[in-house]
């Protein structure tokens, strides 16, 4: 009898312990990710670093990919989409220079991870996903974690006029053109960031800035700088 009691008590204890250990492991992995992949590459924006430490990235990747969640690479999330490499997410977040009272728009919710990182820092995040299953999945996770993220399943071309203008717009689902409504919904002095590349490799990040007079300029940023040749020593 005592043996049975012992075993029936042991199981939930072990379960709780394993969850605890798992959670600790994930936290360690997350901290290591911030240290080695983000800080080591020059990201110094404290709010971004704190957000990357807080957001449980593994919750935003499909279950088969969980063990890779904190790897230094993008991961597939289905429907031809990816969750960006952690460094790229941090890079983009730092570039848009989020402040606590900011309101930002994201086009292409995808996994929801970028929205979560922004939600850690700013007041309101509006995020649009055109692919319904992805949007619904992201919304489920984000609704549990945050009350300042608003997910809409729609064509991002039209932006989200009711809540415009936005301090910044992150266009993770980049297309061959930048929709005019998005430019319109960007505040003067605001920034738009667009990663350009194939599904698993970001070639460059395009920063679109709207000047005080409404003039638009772009700047391309290279997360990885190419040196053209290696001379023989």
């Amino acid at each position, binding site marked *: 009898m005592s043996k049975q009691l012992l075993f029936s008590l042991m199981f939930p204890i072990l379960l709780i312990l394993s969850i605890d250990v798992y959670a600790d492991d994930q936290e360690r992995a997350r901290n290591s990710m911030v240290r080695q992949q983000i800080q080591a590459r020059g990201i110094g924006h404290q709010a971004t670093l704190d957000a990357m430490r807080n957001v449980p990235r593994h919750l935003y990747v499909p279950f088969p990919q969980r063990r890779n969640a904190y790897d230094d690479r993008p991961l597939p999330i289905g429907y031809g989409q990816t969750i960006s490499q952690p460094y790229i997410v941090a890079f983009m977040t730092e570039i848009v220079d989020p402040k606590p009272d900011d309101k930002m728009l994201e086009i292409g919710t995808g996994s929801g991870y970028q929205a979560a990182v922004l939600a850690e820092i700013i007041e309101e995040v509006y995020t649009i996903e055109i692919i319904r299953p992805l949007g619904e999945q992201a919304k489920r996770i984000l609704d549990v974690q945050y009350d300042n993220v608003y997910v809409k399943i729609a*064509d991002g071309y039209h932006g989200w006029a009711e809540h415009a203008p936005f301090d910044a717009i992150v266009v993770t689902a980049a297309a*061959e053109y930048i929709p005019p409504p998005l430019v*319109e919904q960007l505040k003067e002095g605001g920034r738009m960031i667009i990663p350009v590349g194939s599904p*698993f490799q970001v070639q460059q990040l395009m920063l679109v800035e709207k000047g005080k007079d409404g003039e638009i300029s772009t700047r391309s940023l290279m997360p990885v700088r190419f040196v*053209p040749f290696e001379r023989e020593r």
Partner: protein
Amino acid sequence: MGLISGHKGNIRQIFSLGLHSAAIIAFQLALMQLISIVQWHHFAYMIISVAMLGFGASGTLLALARERLIRSSSWLVPILMTISGFFMIVSFEITRLDFFSFDVFLLFVDRSQFLILAANYLIYFVPFFSGALAIGILFIKHSRQIGTYYFSNLLGSGIGGLFFLLLFGNIMPQHVPAVIGLLSVVAGLISLVKRKALLHLAIVLLAVVSSFLLMRTQDRISVSQYKSLARALNLPDAEIMHRQPSIHGLIEVVSSPALRFAPALSLNFTGEVPVKKNVFVNADFFGVVPHFDVKADSHILDHTTQALPWIMQGRNKVLMLNAGEGAPLAHAFAYNPERVDVVIPNSSFVEMMQQEFAEESGNLFLHEELQIYAIEARNFLASKPPQGYDIIVLPQQGTFGGAAGINALRESYEMTLESFDLMWNHLDQDGVITITTWIDYPSRASLKILATLVQTAKNKGVADPSAHIAALRSWGNVTFVLKKSPLSPEEIKNIRGFASSKFFDPLLLPDLQKEERQQFNVVGDQSFFQYIDQIMTGDEEIFSDYGFVIRPATDDKPYFSQFLRLSQLRHLNEIFGGDQLPFLELGYLIVVITLVQSTLLALIFIILPLLRLRKSQKGKTGTLLYFGALGIGYMFVEIILIQRFVLYFGHPVFSIAAVISTMLIASGMGSLTSGKLPATAKTTAFFGLIVTLFLTGYLLLLTPVMQGTIASPVSLKILISLLLIGIPSFFKGMMFPLGIRYLSDYDVSQVPWAWGINGSVSVISTSLAMLIAVEAGFMVVMGIAVVCYSIAFLTFLFHNLFFRKPHVMTGLDL
């Protein structure tokens, strides 16, 4: 006594061999197309190269178990043919099951994909292995009549290629294997014997039922989630409006209210971006269904850098080359030209636009000022006298976000220096050539384009190319213009005005100031301008120093989109990391991987039989050299001829079919003729010499002859082609059967090994030829083919050295 008479008892076998051979070739081609639809062309290559090693493996098995297989051949061969047919029918469908569904993009991010890839290899390996084993058994069993059997194999293969074309242009691609497999099943039935008849018929029944069920399915082929078709179908309310098979590939038209077209649109555009139906060929984006509105006062492309040549001055005579995207054509007509010639090789697309989508496109493709040429651009340029065009528009290069090097090994004859030379000749005095490219990083396409334009100008005697070249850069595109005469002050003023109104930056103008280059779009890596200036000033060092290939493409190396420099792989890996590097230049890497894996497997298949053959005292060097050389030489020549004749005829599909079929049928006739000749070392050496001399002639004369007659009437070109391809192929077709017959007398146990060597080496040859062509050019590939046949010739010239017989002790030795 005729060539085939005396084999009446084997007529059924010979006929079924031909039918089965047709099925194998047709299946190989069908598989290439199907996998290209699901994944990409180079990946299809990778899978099929392993599958084709079934030929090598069959030779290995034959070498190790020859006697048993020959003893069972009467019932085994028909059953193998039927098994092969059954797996031809079902293998593609098996790989589409979730469990076996593979995605090449995931190969570098999910290691479990390697296992799935291995499973795909195995699934496709089975039909080729069983099919090749059937053929190999027949060859070995009837090695003394190899000429007839090889003739049937080659003739059947040639016809199989044509049969594939017939099918692929008329039925849905996923149904093609179900038809082709039945050929093999019938081939097996023709040779049905009583022994194991029940087993055989059971497999036949399974195959027929499978074929029937698959033919009835209307399911669409599911493609990689990373292909542009799949991404378009993820959009809300996306549906396929139109689908048609064609010899150019499967054409699908998708509509969705979220599909818009405005490449690198100006950031000061405030209008509505038009929704457009997208056209896909083999699940890759091809173009849009344009809409031509004669009343419209502007076109969306007026707000992109592509408008550059049009705002410089008026254009009346327009030529658009490989203008798959309908939008540039509609854009051209917005400027009311007097005449527009458009070259679109994909005639099925043209027909579709003239019929199903005529009204929607505003009858653009039926415009009275439009003349359509359904041939390759290069062929058009070479065959027409100078037309005095005001503008020649080339298709947009690259893809938004980069194509990951997927097009690296696509021959782009319209982008070679020789092509630009011809374009220049077609220009009016003030005419321009224009080309737009998506901006990539690291910079590759834009640098290569500029290098090509500068070199073209220099080749045409222009002392200062900078006076003839203008370029405009937006956030996403660069458009270049090369003008035959120097740019006028008015044109330069128009360019500046247009640029500032659209938030574009001049990249190249004769009097450009540095600060003008980044008024609106700042580049992250400023060295881009340094490279541009280096090329403009004619600094040749950049071509050897730069980490990517940006030297202009030529007809000998027409791979414009191939930028990867293998010697820089380590350096690139250090910068981008192993996980990211494949997505920079995936296409070329796939060919390298294909070559490595094929070579490793082929070596196993070649070496394994040696375990058995070590008992034989007879020399094996001759067998390895001769049949290995034939395997490489034949495939190298085939690849060269395909490349050359695609350029010659201007119809890729027709040209490939013509070359392969002519080669195989002519070789088949040669094989048949060889049966009448003694299979001695002298005879074999003689024909080896003949072929070597012909190929040497190719090396020296093929290009000049083809260049000189490219503008001739089609009937003359066909005759020239038949002579150029047919005569050497006839003699080449003799060499394999002569060698086999010689070997049958020399050491019959080596015959299966020879079959395996030839099969294995042929597979390696395809990717090897590609690699050599990219790195060194087609002429080097042809040179190696000459060397190979020289080796074959020399092997028999010095046969005592290479086919060494063991020393037999005689009384004189005591």
